[in-house]
């Protein structure tokens, strides 16, 4: 089987859910992770996210169906995913993190698994709920989010060989780093816009004058 999708990789992919620390250790140190698999997980999560917005029951679903766009959702989730990975990588590089960029990508992707697992039953349950029973839907979703959060935390901790405190601190700094990246990106985009605008201005000036 290929390098990215063999039996062992799927075995550790499953084990992440129940034994995150062990599995993430194997992923980091014995090359048992797979970035393509993480990206596929992300894609499936994005589909589940969009499905939740469309198919969740009328009682719990306040989304306007006209605003739902699966491609937009996917782009946003992918952007956030890449942003988080870059932010975390740039922070942990400077604070003695042992994880490589591909490990961070793998952890962030694998950690979305619980959300996929909980979204589908949540969508089904929401369709048989009435008013004042939304709590069941919210509990299922909340459970998924908590599980995912724990996986991210333990994953980042394991691949970088950090203590819990240091993990939490680096995660907070990661968020700051993400904001800085966004700021720089917007700045760069704006400046590029101005430069192209200048050249376009010169071009039209030249063509219209002659």
């Amino acid at each position, binding site marked *: 089987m290929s390098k990215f999708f063999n039996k062992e990789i799927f075995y550790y992919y499953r084990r992440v859910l129940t034994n995150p620390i062990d599995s993430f250790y194997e992923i980091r140190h014995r090359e048992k992770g797979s970035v393509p698999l993480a990206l596929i997980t992300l894609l499936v999560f994005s589909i589940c996210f969009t499905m939740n917005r469309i198919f969740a029951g009328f009682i719990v679903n306040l989304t306007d169906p006209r605003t739902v766009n699966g491609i937009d959702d996917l782009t946003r989730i992918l952007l956030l995913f890449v942003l988080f990975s870059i932010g975390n990588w740039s922070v942990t590089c400077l604070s003695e993190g042992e994880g490589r960029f591909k490990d961070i990508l793998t952890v962030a992707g694998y950690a979305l698994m619980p959300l996929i697992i909980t979204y589908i039953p949540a969508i089904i349950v929401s369709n048989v709920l009435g*008013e004042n029973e939304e709590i069941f839907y919210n509990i299922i979703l909340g459970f998924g989010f908590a599980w995912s959060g724990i996986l991210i935390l333990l994953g980042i901790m394991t691949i970088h060989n950090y203590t819990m405190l240091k993990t939490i601190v680096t995660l907070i700094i990661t968020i700051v780093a993400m904001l800085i990246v966004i700021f720089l990106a917007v700045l760069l985009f704006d400046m590029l816009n101005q430069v192209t605008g200048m050249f376009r201005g010169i071009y039209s000036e030249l063509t219209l004058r002659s």
Partner: protein
Amino acid sequence: MKRILPLVLALAAFCTLPVFAAVDVPYDSYIFNYRQYLEFTPSPYIPDGNVSGVNLGVGAFSLPRGICVGPDGRVYVADTGNNRIVVMNPEMTEAEVITGFANTGEDGAAFDDTFNKPWGVTVSEKGQLYIADSDNHRIVVLEEGELVRIIQNPVSEMLADDYVFIPLELGVDYADRVYVIGQSMFQGIMVFNETGDFTGFYGTIPVTVSLWQRFWRLFSSQEQLSGSTLFIPTEFTGVSVDKEGFIYASCIDPNGTQAAFRLNPKGEDVIQKGENGNLGGDTYPAPNTLDYGGPSYIVDIVVRDKGIYSMLDRRRGRIFTYDDEGNLLYIFGGLGTQEGTFRQPSSIAYIGDRILVLDTDRQEVMAFKETDYGRLINEAVGLRYDGDEKQAVEKWREVLKLNENLELANVGIGKAYLTEGNNKEAMRHLKLGMNRTYYSIAFKRYRNDILKENLGNILTGFAILLVALYIWRLIRRRGAGKGDMVSDE
């Protein structure tokens, strides 16, 4: 030729059929739905002619400010600039003019008194005419042209010593209590009892200061504070009294969320705000363009039958109509110079199937007549108000034929299906009407029915599943045991 004849006949028959073409109106008719999206609707009201002083043969109006309809259907217009009151018959074809009344001075001598800028007019249930005689600082009460009483010089500890009473708008309830909006009187509506004594302020609009504003006030100096805008309550702009004695008042709400108030005898606001919680006219912030969004400038309000009330907006010349539950029924009207559009609408009144709007700048009374669409909605809401939901459904169905997007009609039909016991249809209509509360009731009943019918099957399936699971585990354990034995060897 014989073959063509039927065709020609059919064509002729088709042409002579009454055509229900859309009436061309010079304004938009629309509504805001559950998600505050703008939806255009058929016209609920169409222009039904203008009446000016010249038409009536009493000379042109001059900056008229107030209009009202008496219990006998006569229409009263306060012709402010000409210092007179014009009284029209219900058809608005003939008019008589009140320019003054016989008064007795302090010395007991009789003299002919006149008005000075009469602003608002209203008629009590007894047929007495109340005139806010603004620049004479008094309210004049007339009955058939004869003076009944004069309300002036309010005295109270709550009023400043140099307070000048300038009444603008007024309303009268069944007990002859007078509710007056005075000029720059932001403390509330002034209430006068049946003998004409000032009894107090009423229905003050609470001032809301946002957290952010509080935060900045903490850091600003005394000079900055004195330079900033004062937090004073908004003034009321119009007042109208319903048959039960509740006072409907309108105000200009800069946030565009609540421009109408329904005040109980204690002066508390008891208005119902509906699903959207929006009683401010056009929604704010703007949904699409500024033509339909941004806060409205509500200048007057009128209570109609069955708890329906209409508000008049000066910013875009709209008339907003709500029902007793605070649901938006329809919006129509616009600014312009064509017939049926306003330049400066200032007062609104209601008579039978017509809405009358007084335009100060055009110096005309503009009438609007209800269409089938408007009539059906009014009747359906009226029937629901009376508790006759079954008959209301028929009306709602008709409404739905004319505008199948109307959420209110869907909710009305859905509720009827719910009481009938047809839960599935109820769910469909209540979902279309975006009413989660009633949808949930229908849904729970539907769910219970399905469970009751299929309880046996569900339990049987569950039992089979359990047995299958048990057998599967048994087989698996046996298989695993064999495997162990093999590995041992």
